[in-house]
């Protein structure tokens, strides 16, 4: 379970460039729930995810995983519970290391590295098995340098890596945004499989309204650092993309035309 209590994040506090990125987020996500997060650019979606992951310090408010208060725990300390996939396919993997080395790092996530060999044949077998799920032929390229793989392949591997260690929370930050539609669909498929299999608590930021409604069981929309609506269950199933767009236009409460092309993608 993730619980955010009155979460505030302010960047550049006290400077002319001060930005109130999050202004009082109250959010409880029960164990096993899959929440999609939407909102325009600068609404605070990524900030919320990064704050939960521990990359960004909270200005005010508290974060709980289950009963544990993790507000003051640094990002590295939260990796036992959290797996992440970033938007940029280059961010989630090390280009200088091989596929198997990257996977070995993810396999040791949240544990202290020891002076035992990072790779062995038993692990290679596990990695091969996992990679073969992708049907990209990567299972035969364990020793290929990550930097030589395409963006889609790298993102696929990051996704598998996020599931190598048991974790309870998965944070997906627009993880299909930088991919072509076909690869994006494949990645989304595998994400759903993994989430189902491991019964993960998931937050997925997306720019695609379609994706937001098709996946998960709850959708929240952020605007200017606040949750402006929260859809769940039967009510959510009645919603169509155009309803979301309407809601979104309302949230700007001035009837202004949508100028964000990304919001209209796939809708």
């Amino acid at each position, binding site marked *: 379970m993730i619980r955010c209590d009155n979460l505030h994040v302010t960047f550049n506090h006290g400077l002319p460039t001060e930005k109130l990125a999050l202004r009082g987020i109250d959010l409880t996500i029960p164990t096993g729930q899959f929440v999609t997060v939407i909102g325009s650019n600068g609404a605070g979606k990524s900030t919320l995810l990064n704050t939960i*992951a521990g*990359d960004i310090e909270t200005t005010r408010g508290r974060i709980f995983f289950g009963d544990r208060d993790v507000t003051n725990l640094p*990002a*590295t*300390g939260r*990796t*036992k519970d959290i797996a*992440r996939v*970033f938007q940029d396919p*280059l*961010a*989630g*993997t*090390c*280009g*200088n*290391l*091989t596929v198997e*080395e990257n996977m*070995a*790092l*993810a396999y*040791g*996530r*949240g*544990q202290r*590295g*020891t*002076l*035992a*060999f*990072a*790779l062995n044949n038993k692990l290679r077998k596990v990695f091969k098995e996992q990679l073969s799920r992708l049907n990209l032929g990567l299972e035969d390229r364990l*020793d290929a*340098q990550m930097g030589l793989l395409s963006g889609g392949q790298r993102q696929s591997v990051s996704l598998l890596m996020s599931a190598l260690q048991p974790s309870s929370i998965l944070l997906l930050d627009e993880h299909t945004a930088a991919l072509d539609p076909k690869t994006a669909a494949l990645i989304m498929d595998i994400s759903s499989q993994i989430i189902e299999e491991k019964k993960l608590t998931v937050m997925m930021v997306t720019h695609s309204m379609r994706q937001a409604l098709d996946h998960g069981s709850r959708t929240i929309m952020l605007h200017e650092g606040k949750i402006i609506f929260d859809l769940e269950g039967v009510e959510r199933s009645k919603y169509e993309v155009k309803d979301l767009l309407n809601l979104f236009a309302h949230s700007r409460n001035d009837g202004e035309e949508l100028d964000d092309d990304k919001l209209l993608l796939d809708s």
Partner: protein
Amino acid sequence: MSLYAFLGTLEIGFIYGLVAMGVYLTFRILDFPDLTVDGSFTLGAAVTATLIVMGINPYLSTLLGASAAACAGLVTAWLNLRFNILHLLASILTMTALYTINLRVMGKPNVALIMEPTMLTPFLNLGIPAMYMKVIFVAVCAIIGGLLVAWFLYTQYGLAMRAVGSNKRMAQANGIVVNEKVYVGLALSNGLVGLAGALFAQTNGFADSTMGIGTIVVGLAAVIVGESLFATRSMLVIVMSCILGSILYRIAVSMALNTDFLGFQASDVNLLTAVLVALALVFPKLRSEYKAKKARGQEI
């Protein structure tokens, strides 16, 4: 080149192979250009020589010398990580401070070890002539050092360190404590360089306050020469090619200095090294520019 000169070249080559490994750890693995080594090479030599003269066991002295150098690395890492001083500048500050510290440690600009016992002493009465024994000894040290470094880079901890140098954000997302890896990496790197300084002092019979000047460039030259030999991802081969690169570099320099018609003097070695390293750094860029130009030419 005479046999004697060749053995001398090999000996220096193996010693600077350790320096090259240290430089490889910072420049390539951690992506942290560390110039501390110019000071920590001398520090390793100065501490070891001073302790030996005081009558301390040479092996213990060497260990302490290398540890002192490792601490110098920690200072650089601390300046960079704690106070956000640019890594290059942090290392230059430590290096500058070390110049004074080295003089204080020795109490004078140089310490002679000619008549003192060294790590080599137990091996000198085995019947092998000293000039061969020295080379064998430093070769064994460099190779054992290389095996240990390669092993380290293959471990979970070493792999985490490589991830830190490659992609900090990814490393963090996988629970790797970035700063700790930088501290350990710099300590290890400078420890290796300090060990090289200690070996240099014992095989050459002195420690001198100016002996470290240019260490970083020589180490970098060895790394680059080694890298150009093998295109590989194997850590063992890469680390061993640091040693080989160091030896080849030394042979190239001594050939250049010994070839009369080129007219070089011993004092030209720093210019030669700088030009060699500059060329090695520039060459990949020039090649890719040339290739791009050629590709454009074909299109038109």
